[in-house]
């Protein structure tokens, strides 16, 4: 008996074989379970497997427990480095983006060189260069002693500058794309109203560009949290050691680098999760006015499409109405 499984307004894919009652009942039962719960179940299974592997590997958990405090103490420095670098990067990105969009040959050329060099060389090489090569370079220029000393940078500062420059280059392109994404009609209208370039940018273009810029920028910040680890290669003092450096120190002291780095990895993962959560909230906040109430910005319901034929076509069976989103049917949690 061929059963017709349909979604709303959907017809059975032509190639689907007729299926028995049990598969149907399973599909219907699964329909009632919220999507989020299913995803949670998947995560639980994955974590169970990870814990099993972890236990089987026989890591020295005693060591990990005793060093957890020390390694996590680097958290504040990781965050400080990332925050200061991202501010530097944002400033550079804004300037760089306007340079890339400019018709002035100097601005265009310099910003082009900046993005090319700092995207084209590895971050760790940049950290080394800024920490160790600036000093001798300036020395050979024959400037005064005080200026020379200024350029022998403290490794912590040098690392932040390198991170800022590097990410600024990547974010220049993000900002440029964001600015260009605002339709030209907006710019023309602003000019028609008599706004100067500055006013137009500040009041019309940039506010709209921000919405496009925030997701990749947030992404970059989350990536930067991990790149702060490279700053340790500049020779940062222990007093300012961030998570990775502390893991390295604790691990080498006890000849257990593996356990120490596992702890560091867990710390970075938790940090990333926290910031991802905040970024999602920021995105949602910024998208009011662009997204209709009743839609979810990130659609968790896959609109049933005819997929490859199979005994259970769960996507086809899910009726979108059950997951209408925040402003949807009563009883739906968010």
């Amino acid at each position: 008996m061929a059963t017709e499984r349909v979604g709303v307004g959907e017809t059975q894919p032509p190639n689907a074989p007729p299926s028995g009652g049990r598969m149907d009942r399973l599909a219907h039962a699964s329909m009632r379970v919220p999507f989020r719960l299913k995803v949670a179940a998947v995560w639980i299974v994955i974590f169970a497997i990870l814990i099993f592997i972890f236990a089987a590997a026989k890591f020295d958990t005693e060591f990990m427990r005793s060093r957890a405090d020390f390694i996590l103490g680097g958290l504040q420095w990781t965050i400080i480095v990332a925050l200061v670098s991202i501010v530097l990067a944002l400033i550079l990105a804004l300037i760089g983006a306007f340079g890339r969009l400019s018709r002035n040959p100097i601005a265009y050329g310099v910003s082009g060189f900046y993005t090319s060099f700092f995207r084209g060389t590895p971050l760790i090489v940049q950290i080394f260069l800024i920490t160790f090569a600036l000093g001798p370079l300036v020395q050979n220029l024959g400037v005064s002693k005080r200026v020379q000393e200024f350029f022998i940078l403290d490794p912590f500062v040098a690392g932040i500058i390198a991170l800022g420059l590097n990410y600024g280059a990547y974010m220049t392109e993000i900002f440029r794309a964001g600015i260009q994404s605002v339709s030209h009609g907006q710019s023309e209208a602003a000019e028609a109203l008599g706004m100067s370039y500055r006013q137009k940018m500040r009041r019309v273009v940039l506010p709209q560009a921000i919405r496009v810029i925030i997701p990749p920028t947030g992404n970059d910040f989350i990536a930067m949290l991990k790149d702060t680890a490279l700053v340790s290669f500049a020779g940062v003092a222990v007093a300012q050691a961030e998570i990775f450096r502390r893991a390295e120190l604790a691990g080498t002291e006890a000849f257990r680098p593996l356990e120490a780095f596992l702890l560091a990895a867990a710390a970075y993962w938790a940090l990333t999760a926290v910031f991802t959560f905040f970024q999602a909230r920021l995105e949602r906040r910024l998208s009011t006015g662009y997204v209709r109430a009743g839609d979810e910005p990130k659609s968790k319901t896959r609109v049933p499409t005819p997929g490859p034929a199979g005994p259970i076509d769960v996507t086809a069976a899910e009726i979108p109405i059950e997951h209408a989103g925040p402003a949807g049917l009563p009883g739906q949690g968010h």
Partner: protein
Amino acid sequence: MMQRIRIRGLFAMVAVLAMVAAACGGDETDGAGSGGGNAGEGVCATHPADAGDLLAEICSKGTITVSTDPAYPPQSSLNVETGEFEGFDIDVATEIANQLGVDIAWEEPNWNAIIAGNWQGRWDMSVGSMTVTVERAEVLNFSPAYYFTPAAVAVPTDSSVSSVDQLSGTTVAVCAGCTYDHYLSGTLDIPGFDFGVSPIAEPVVKGYDTDSTAIQAVLSGQADAVMSALPTLEKAIDKGREIKVVGEPLFYEPLSVAIDKSSELDPTSLVDEVSAIVEEMHADGTLSELSMKWFGEDLTVSAE
């Protein structure tokens, strides 16, 4: 409309944070902050203050800055509980500072920056178990050797290897760029020493960032054996790593205190004074004592 004031405020806050961080960045020293502070005693008491050389500057500052890499127990490591550096190198450097009559401050640059010379005055002296090699002697001044490290090979405890010749053609883990790396590749060049041919023929050498990682590599099966300083291997065994030393030490390398040749101020007097201090420490048994404390054996006399 963009909430400009709030965002500006955020920027301002983070900018202030940046300045605070940078300010804190420069000032803090760590590890063992002082060396007993006998200002006015020791070498600095007799060295003319107007000599205008590196030693005079150190004496007038009252502090000597020493570089160390706390990734190498028992020579230098960070005691996580006390937050101080500890190790054989740390003690030797502290004693040298005492003899000079100054306090000690620590820097932790990358090892490659130390052996490359041209320190830019960031630190004055390196007491880091550095082997004197011909290339390094071009950019650094060395004191007489303050101890000799035997280099040995270790394998996992359950390995069937019992002598070093059985390791020919196998993979050996070393810390990259260390003397063991050069020794296995046949390029180790120490003035005054002849090492002959390495008993491990045609090894596949794998370099890692520290000895600790190299030992981990052997335990993880990435390499068949690890070559490192004997005290380091013994410390690892002490801390419960399942490796065993194979055979006798392959060579002894002389390790010295290093001072930058290209420093702005003339380093000659500092080199001379430090060399004299090292020889005195040999003569009065200080070095032997420290060696027994950290290595369990006296490595300060050449066993050649």
